[in-house]
């Protein structure tokens, strides 16, 4: 399962190297209300076809067909291949926030600033920055977001008489207490398979791995902030109170089920994964804000989340943009996104659609209040055009570090990531500062 993103990464890298001179089709079609158009939409959110059915019923002239894709990286690799080939891309594409710079630098996304109009006010600042990349252009409309939160087994916490940790120091203490009480139990694991997870934790601490200044990029993966985060986790893994196995493996699923993993630093979409992987633990989990570095200035990061974009190959950009706008800002659509497609809508109006907690968390009525708070305190973060390189370097370098269980190796892994990311930016011809 984890091989596919690597393969996709290689594809993306190969394509980026050759696509520097490809250009999108900029034919500016204005929407004729009586023209019948058929649009295709690549998405991997569950039941997206049912959400789109509501649009199709109300818009007989703009019919959208959903083609469900593999989640995340494979879909991006496929889109880039189609862009390079000059045909075969869909009109509309679900794009994860961290992939937008990559797609923009490959000329894969259309600028819909004109159609977007005053949408900006409807989304949190961080999400909007991710689709504009700090420019005047708009490369998509935020669809869902993943503010990070802390899930824990309240039954285990109650038994050991500990509270949900408010700071990372308390988290470390809780991890020690739990592991001491039962050597098989861990409060969490350091996953070298999930770079997005680690990026979110670094984001919470205030890191921003890439930066743009004019037309030159900078990379700050190995900065003091991320070093602090890596050092913290390296310390816990070395001490042995946190597991060092990756998440999303059958082994991890079993650990959630049999209660050897009793906490999970995840995001707002966590309940769906917990329900799918550990249905028998229903009612035993609770959610809280992430532990904090500075309790006086609470913050969180983002893990997952995506925008809906119009591709540069679309022949009906105006109609596609109209659909994208509806999907992510119309109250009825937001309700469908939340209730049917099971995502956490990025719109600031999502609270109205999310009154009931997810079924798996029916024991915690304030679930979405916690989520809304997390959404508000999400720190800004800038992604670069070669996230795939940084992420696969994370898998390699932190894979070795986690295996070794030595804190010193964690710091070294960051330096490796920084170097690989910087070298790749230079080699692919981006202007790099410093």
């Amino acid at each position, binding site marked *: *399962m984890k091989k596919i993103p690597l393969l996709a990464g290689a594809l993306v890298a190969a394509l980026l190297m050759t696509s520097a001179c490809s250009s999108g089709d900029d034919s500016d079609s204005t929407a004729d209300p009586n023209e019948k158009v058929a649009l295709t939409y690549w998405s991997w959110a569950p039941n997206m076809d049912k959400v789109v059915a509501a649009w199709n019923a109300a818009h007989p002239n703009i019919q959208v067909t959903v083609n469900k894709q593999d*989640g995340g990286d494979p879909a991006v690799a496929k889109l880039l291949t189609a862009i390079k080939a000059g*045909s075969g891309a869909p009109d509309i594409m679900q794009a994860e926030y961290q992939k937008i710079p990559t797609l923009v630098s490959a000329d894969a996304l259309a600028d819909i600033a004109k159609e977007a109009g005053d949408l900006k006010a409807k989304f949190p600042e961080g999400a909007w920055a991710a689709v504009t990349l700090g420019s005047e252009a708009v490369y998509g409309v935020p669809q869902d977001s993943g503010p990070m939160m802390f899930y824990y087994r309240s039954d285990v916490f109650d038994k050991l008489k500990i509270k949900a940790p408010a700071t990372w120091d308390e988290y470390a203490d809780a991890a020690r207490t739990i592991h001491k009480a039962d050597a098989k139990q861990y409060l969490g694991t350091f996953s070298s398979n999930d770079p997005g997870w680690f990026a979110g934790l670094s984001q919470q601490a205030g890191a921003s791995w890439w930066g743009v200044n004019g037309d030159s990029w900078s990379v700050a993966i190995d900065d003091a902030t991320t070093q602090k985060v890596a050092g913290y986790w390296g310390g816990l893994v070395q001490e042995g109170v946190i597991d060092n196995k990756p998440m999303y493996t*059958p082994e991890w*699923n*079993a650990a959630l089920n049999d209660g050897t993993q009793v906490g999970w630093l995840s995001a707002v979409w966590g309940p*769906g994964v917990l329900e799918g992987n550990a249905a*028998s633990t229903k009612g035993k989990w609770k959610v809280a804000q992430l532990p904090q570095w500075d309790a006086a200035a609470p913050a969180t990061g983002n893990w997952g989340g995506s925008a809906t974009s119009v591709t540069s190959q679309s022949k009906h950009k105006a109609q596609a943009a109209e659909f994208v706008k509806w999907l992510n800002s119309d109250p009825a659509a937001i309700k469908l996104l939340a209730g049917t497609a099971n995502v956490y809508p990025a719109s600031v109006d999502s609270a109205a659609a999310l009154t009931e907690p997810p079924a798996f968390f029916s024991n915690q009525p304030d679930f979405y209040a916690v989520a809304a708070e997390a959404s508000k305190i999400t720190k800004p973060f800038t992604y670069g055009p070669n996230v795939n390189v940084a992420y696969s370097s994370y898998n390699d370098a932190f894979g070795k570090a986690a295996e070794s269980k030595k804190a010193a190796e964690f710091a070294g892994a960051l330096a490796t990531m920084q170097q690989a990311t910087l070298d790749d930016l230079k080699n692919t011809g981006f202007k790099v500062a410093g």
Partner: protein
Amino acid sequence: MAVTTVPVVPTTTGATTAPRVQRHRRTSPTATILLLLGAAYCLMPVLWVLIASTKSASELFTTFTFTPSTHLFDNIAFLTSYRDGLYWRWMANSALFAGVGAAASTLVSAMAGFALAKYDFRGKSLVFNLVLAGVLVPAVILAVPQYLLLAKAGMTNTYWSVLLPSMISPYGIYLCRIFAAATVPNEVLEAARMDGAGDWRSFVRVVLPMMRSGLVTVFLFQFVAIWNNYMLPFIMLGDDKLFPVTVGLSGLLNQGATQPAMYTSVVTGALLSVVPLVALFLGLQRYWRVDLGAGAVKA
């Protein structure tokens, strides 16, 4: 599969075959153990899939690996209900890609292999060397260039985009050349020509029946290769209604980090997807055996 078949040795007149019979009676314990280990190594994963597909989602990772459960039909029902039976559409697509693709590929291979074996023309060795080189290039490498070519023709995301590249199999052509050279005597072709059969007629009426067992081999190889192919359809197809079962199942695993992977459905789907292959092998096995026997006689 037919490891224990005793080859039928044509008895040449007068020669006794007593020592040979003796040799067949003797069994080597070392060899038997090695073969049993090999069989276990190959069959354990199949057994795992078989047992895992009977477990419910919560049992899959928590109960002992080789303890069967009772949820096979629940799993099949769930898989069937997934997005209005999309899984069976994928199976039908796989059958179409593999069936039509393998049949067309076998015909092309037979024609090309026969021509290379029995006709003399300029550039023949060049063509054959190119085919040989093609055998060495993994099909995976060609998937992206093929995509770029078909995109120029506007044929991506159609059935043709998978069928066309599947029709040419350098390995099949190579095998067919060997089979044609070994099983079609020049005298037979001459006789056909004497009787007034044209090239096409002698190919269809004389050559194809003589190469039949070899063609079954090529068909099976190609069918399995297309059925299991992942990269080509993955790159070519965007519409999930056109997916073969390989691409469809991988999609159930790759739901993105925010959704749980559908392990039980994937395991059950994988089990069901090998059933047609097993059936095909059992059905065509007798031709395969004849073929092995025929080869032995010639040698």
